[in-house]
């Protein structure tokens, strides 16, 4: 990825940006790195283990990142949808960030995995990916890559769940969500969860019980999923971050399909396209109003 390194050097040398946010290898695999020195640009890489959605660091609540100054950020097509989301929702100005788009052929579930990009090792979202290079980018690097091989589609799992009786579905989600300890990793890594004060932390009144019992966990995860309906960029970071390995992406994927069915909206990296929640149309579905 010499192209990426050269571009990063140029951006820093020409003082177009004061730091590059990209991927570099640590002891156990790639991790987000912030490069401020030209000599450190050699550390920048991009490969199928560069899973993290770096757009999360662009949220205005990351004050320590903002202190670095103007950033250039390495984005895959899915990450670029998150950047578009931040711009669309007035959290970021387009001119305040330089986007280095990378052509992606899919990533693994876990950046620490040294296994090839194959079978169950492929991140579930990559099997549904429609776009392997971002349109929202100032620069585009890397060669076009083939789609990753894979088998288990989340849509097949969603169809299975949809075919269950309500009692079976409740039992499934009860058993899954019972494992949540409310570490909020799902929220913290989410590029679209940028509220200054999350509803889960409000105490006057308590909207969502803080306790990780089934009642509190349902309140939290359903609220989180609903809050992301039509906003979730399907980057899968919530699911990857979950230490209890709850398949949270299923909830988001389900709601994305509901939003598409009702409003014909599919999340995009074009920031000028408004979301259903952020726009008003006379021909919107309103069958739910009885």
């Amino acid at each position, binding site marked *: 990825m010499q192209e990426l390194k050269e571009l990063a050097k140029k951006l820093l040398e020409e003082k177009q940006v004061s730091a590059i946010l990209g991927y570099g290898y640590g002891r156990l695999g790639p991790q987000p790195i912030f490069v401020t020195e030209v000599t450190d640009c050699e550390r920048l890489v991009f490969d199928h283990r560069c899973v993290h959605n770096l757009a999360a660091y662009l949220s205005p609540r990351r004050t320590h990142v903002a202190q670095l100054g103007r950033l250039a950020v390495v984005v895959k097509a899915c990450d670029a949808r998150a950047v578009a989301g931040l711009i669309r929702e007035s959290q970021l100005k387009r001119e305040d960030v330089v986007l280095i788009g990378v052509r992606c052929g899919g990533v693994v579930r876990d950046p620490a995995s040294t296994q090839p990009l194959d079978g169950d090792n492929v991140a*579930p979202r990559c099997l549904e990916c429609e776009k392997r290079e971002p349109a929202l980018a100032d620069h585009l690097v890397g060669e076009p890559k083939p789609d990753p091989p894979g088998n288990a589609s989340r849509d097949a799992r969603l169809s299975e769940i949809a075919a269950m009786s309500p009692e079976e579905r409740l039992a499934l989600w009860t058993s899954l969500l019972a494992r949540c300890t409310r570490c909020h990793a799902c929220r913290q*890594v989410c590029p679209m969860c940028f509220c200054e004060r999350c509803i889960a932390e409000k105490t006057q009144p308590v909207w969502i019980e803080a306790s990780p019992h089934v009642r509190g966990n349902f309140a939290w995860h359903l609220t989180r999923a609903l809050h992301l309906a039509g906003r979730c960029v399907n980057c899968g970071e919530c699911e990857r*971050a979950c230490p209890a390995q709850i398949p949270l992406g299923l909830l988001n994927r389900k709601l994305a399909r509901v939003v598409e069915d009702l409003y014909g909206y599919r999340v995009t990296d074009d920031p000028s396209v408004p979301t259903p929640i952020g726009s008003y149309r006379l021909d919107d579905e309103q069958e739910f109003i009885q």
Partner: protein
Amino acid sequence: MIERRTLSKTDLGALVADLLAAGASVVAPIRFVDQGRAHIEYGPVRSPDEMVLDGPQPRRSLKEVVLPPTEVLFRWRQSKSGVGIEEVPTSFQETVVVGARPCDAAALEILDRVMGWDFRDELWFGRRQATAILALECTRCDDSCFCTAVGLSPAGTRGADWFLTPVEGGYEVDVLTPKGEALLERHKDRCPEMAGPTTRRVAGLEQKVRANLDVRPDAIRAWLETHFDDALWKRAALRCHGCSACAFVCPTCHCFDIVDEPDGIDRGARRRNWDACQTALFTLHASGYNPRKDQAARLRQRLLHKFSIYPSRFGEVLCTGCGRCVRVCPAGTDLVAILAEIGRATAEQGDAR
């Protein structure tokens, strides 16, 4: 002298079945599968076949058996005559943990110190008393393990009532505590006396773990206590998302929050829930002021508590080197790398002197 017995794999299964039949709860590493992705966690077993004793380390630590993520401290009920308080039981169902990792077993003993310090935590000690730990020597480790750097070992028996060492066809059992002896007394026929000399082999795992990280806790502590404003904190914290994953999978992190939750108009419960110093909310004052103003201060706090504050109060570090925080961090924060960097810095300081 430590009593040493043998336990075949079949007899371990039979022992677990006996315990379950006698009404005890048995907790062991078991497999969870979602979306084709399998992982191992400690959980209650319904039959001995569910136990996965030779798999990778359980993703979450054993602490939740003794300190559940949420538990009721008491219940209240309000009426015209006043408020009635209903206590919760402080004695618990007998629980036997089979296949605890040495790093998890040791953690419980380390936590006994703070839980019995200025206030004796009845719920903690109630569960501790009801729980027997059958720890199992590690037969595998990975790049995140560093127990040897904090004075423990893949074959360390600390915190175990029985210590199981895998041998051909089963285990050799060291019975280490009065609780372990009482358990043996009830299940003697499952654990015959050793017929011959030990057949255990030296696994050589210790050298592998030591290769991951070789530092001295006292050197780490000395550095931490003199580098409060070091550039390391800001640099390492840049990537931190401020979630609680590291603390919640940690066998020794034990901070909690207390909340009152209504269960209706006139009744409710006071609960304690896990909490963690890595979140902004943890230290946020009602005034809006936050003394730990950024992620750098929070990351530093985590290391200070483990390697300076706890040792200064209780004489040992609050870390068993299990490596879970490294494995789960979504941003790839690597405590092993951070401790190694501190270790190198102290070595250089030593050279300069």
